[in-house]
């Protein structure tokens, strides 16, 4: 094919060990643009609404998208998707590194896994050779250890993704690890892999990827390479990755500290980007085709503990496993990052769950007896090490925390739901929303729970007024369309906005690759279509009005920020309701948060409207009709 699509997809029935090669359907890609879009459609169509996420009917999908591997800057991503055991809705998570491109170089666009393997297996792909191989001697190994062993056994030039013991044991926020430190962290994709007894995917390929107009693509990409080489923003990104704005978050009172109790960490200087680079850095590490090399390969050195190597910690992990846990040493944060990586758990949910457990311990809701004689003190890397072992093995109360902070708080009670910092079951990213209402709304309305990659509004909130909710809803809607496009195209978002590569330029590259003549507007509408589909999927699975699931934990409006620059600030419950009302109106959904027939039909999703109607959750018609344009691009006020 000459449109960025490799041409072959695989359907693998793990129950009977059958591998089927099918032709990748260009029409599906044309409509859904690959990655997250194709995943959303397949999950919606094929996973029964009452299917257990850990059962044979859940489908685990690996999709490389169109642009990944095609010489485009930062064209490195691969998307994983399945019905999330953490949120019980559509789940997808992406990761950089080199696996996506390598899958394409082997000739494959997508792998769809169904069923459950009777024994642990790993998928072996070497161009045309595709085998489900016995993984019994790898089962039980850490993610990083397993990748090292597989590379030794198969060849250093294989690209490999693995799960750790946590995924094998069904910890709901388990992740998938690749390239010794890149993760598909969110929504528990590693747990779904583990439930199917799939330990790893190992790929090698030497084919070419055909594109529509290689000359124009090359010319455009070379121009972008040379232009961004000297862009002023490039150097700090290359040196620090995302770690350099830890201090900015702290100064602006959005850095979570002590389980989101407060938003200012006095010891931030001990765990910021400078400390990472000065104390821990081994080398800068890039994904395929990216010269921003935001990855930081580091070592954690703690007296009495083995020296470990890892990729990270980046912003989210420094926030959620650093200030959020009261850690005052960057080596401790790095060590926790390594533990979570090797055990195979998302560092973001991991940090959120540990922090929740620490607050429970602080309040006496769990005791040393529950923790096998250990304490769980803020800032103690040893205490964290012990807890993580209990969680990964689901031992004792580790079992409770293995379900994420939502399920743990339901077991523990004692008012702990208030400070289980999740939405829809997935823990918050490393930004506190109390003095950043757009960010809080972003968490509340993201389809996969409290994750920031759908919409991030802190700069908007600072510029527009942090105590006002005016106009936030429309901006969040716009961001929720543009940001997931990167997960659909399988390229990295860090290039957009950070070094002046515009959506128009990215769409131009897409057209050089595919020849489809896509416009930015069409791409945004496709993204809106995907967004509405995953919303319908969520409502259908959870059988309640959408609004019922869109609330943050009550700390968000009951506890004003107690210290730091944000002291005394916080949103009110009324503001939360107001934001939701405006958000649904902006989306063409009704007051219950349910998509209406008008908006679904406008997006070509008649079947979804019919399904919602059958269940009784189709949105009631809005007086005045749906807005013709949903979402509004943020334009900074003139100064």
């Amino acid at each position, binding site marked *: 094919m000459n449109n960025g699509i490799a041409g072959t997809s695989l359907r693998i029935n793990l129950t009977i060990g059958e591998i089927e090669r099918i032709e990748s359907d260009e029409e599906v890609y044309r409509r859904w643009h690959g990655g997250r879009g194709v995943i959303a459609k397949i999950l919606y169509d094929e996973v029964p609404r009452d299917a257990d996420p850990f059962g044979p009917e859940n489908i685990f999908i690996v999709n490389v998208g169109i642009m990944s591997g095609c010489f485009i800057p930062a064209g490195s991503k691969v998307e994983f998707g399945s019905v999330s055991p953490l949120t019980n809705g559509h789940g997808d998570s992406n990761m950089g590194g080199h696996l996506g491109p390598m899958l394409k170089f082997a000739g494959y666009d997508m792998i769809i896994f169904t069923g459950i393997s009777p024994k642990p297996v790993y998928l072996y792909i070497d161009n045309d050779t595709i085998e489900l191989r016995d993984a019994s001697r790898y089962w039980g190994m850490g993610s*990083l250890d397993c990748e090292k062993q597989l590379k030794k056994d198969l060849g250093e030039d294989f690209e490999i993704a693995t799960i750790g013991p946590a995924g094998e044991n069904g910890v709901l926020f388990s992740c998938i690890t690749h390239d010794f430190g890149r993760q598909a962290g969110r929504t528990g994709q590693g747990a779904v892999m583990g439930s199917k007894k799939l330990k790893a995917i190992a790929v090698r390929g*030497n084919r070419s990827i055909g594109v529509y107009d290689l000359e124009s693509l090359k010319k455009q990409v070379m121009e972008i*390479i040379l232009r961004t*080489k000297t862009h002023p923003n490039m150097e700090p990104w290359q040196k620090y990755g995302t770690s350099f704005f830890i201090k900015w978050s702290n100064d602006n009172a959005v850095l979570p500290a002590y389980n989101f109790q407060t938003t200012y960490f006095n010891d931030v200087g001990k765990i910021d980007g400078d400390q990472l680079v000065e104390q821990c850095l*081994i080398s*800068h590490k890039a994904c395929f085709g*990216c010269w921003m090399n935001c990855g930081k390969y580091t070592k954690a050195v703690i007296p009495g503990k083995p020296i470990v*190597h890892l990729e990270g910690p980046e912003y989210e992990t420094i926030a959620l496993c650093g200030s959020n846990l009261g850690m005052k040493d960057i080596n401790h944060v790095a060590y926790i990052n390594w533990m979570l990586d090797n055990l195979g758990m998302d560092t973001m949910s991991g940090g959120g769950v540990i922090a929740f457990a620490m607050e429970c311990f602080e309040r006496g809701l769990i005791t040393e007896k529950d923790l096998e004689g250990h304490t769980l003190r803020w800032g103690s890397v040893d205490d964290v090490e012990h807890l993580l072992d209990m969680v990964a093995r689901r031992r004792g109360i580790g079992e409770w925390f293995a379900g994420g902070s939502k399920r743990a708080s339901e077991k523990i009670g004692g008012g702990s739901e208030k400070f289980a910092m999740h939405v829809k079951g997935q823990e918050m990213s490393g930004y506190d929303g109390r003095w950043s209402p757009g960010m809080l709304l972003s968490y509340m309305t993201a389809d996969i729970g409290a994750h920031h990659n759908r919409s991030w509004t802190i700069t908007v909130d600072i510029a527009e007024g942090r105590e006002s909710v005016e106009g936030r809803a429309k901006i969040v809607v716009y961001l929720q369309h543009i940001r997931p496009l990167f997960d659909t195209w399988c390229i990295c978002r860090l290039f957009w906005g950070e070094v002046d590569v515009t959506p128009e330029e990215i769409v131009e590259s897409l057209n050089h690759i595919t020849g489809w003549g896509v416009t930015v507007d069409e791409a945004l509408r496709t993204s809106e279509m995907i967004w509405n589909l995953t919303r319908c999927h969520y409502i259908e699975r959870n059988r309640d009005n959408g609004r019922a699931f869109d609330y943050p934990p009550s700390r968000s409006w009951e506890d004003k920020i107690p210290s730091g620059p944000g002291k005394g600030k916080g949103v009110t419950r009324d503001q939360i309701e107001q934001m939701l009302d405006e958000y649904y109106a902006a989306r063409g959904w009704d007051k219950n948060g349910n998509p209406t027939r008008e908006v679904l039909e406008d997006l070509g999703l008649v079947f979804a409207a019919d399904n919602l109607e059958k269940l009784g959750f189709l949105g009631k018609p809005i007086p005045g009709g749906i807005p013709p344009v949903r979402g509004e691009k943020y334009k900074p006020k003139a100064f």
Partner: protein
Amino acid sequence: MRIKINRDMCTGCRLCLQICAIEHFSEINPKKAALRIEAKFPDPGKYWPFVCTQCGKCAEVCPEDAINQNEIGAYIVDKERCTNCGECVAVCPVGVVFQHSDLEHVIICDFCMRCTEVCNTGAIVKWEKTAAAKEKEA
């Protein structure tokens, strides 16, 4: 004209491999590049690029006399004469002579320098002898 490797600066982005294949084969395929990157993880945690050093062993060993050095020092493969026997692949001390299942000849770097243009970190750079050193040699 030579290529100098500053090994510790490589980040593994593989842009060099991509541009090399695009330049020489009009294809996106890192396995058709004339250089390679070794990933050394978890220990020491670095990427090592390997590029032709113009040692000439490939030309010495070629039974068909298909490899000859040109005026800029690059060892050029005569695609008609090359029988793809692989002797040069085996003898290259740096492991930068490549074969590919699509091709009937080997791949050796022709020093077009595109890789040095895309490398953003200075891991792969153009290197020429200074005027003084050239004079000394003459």
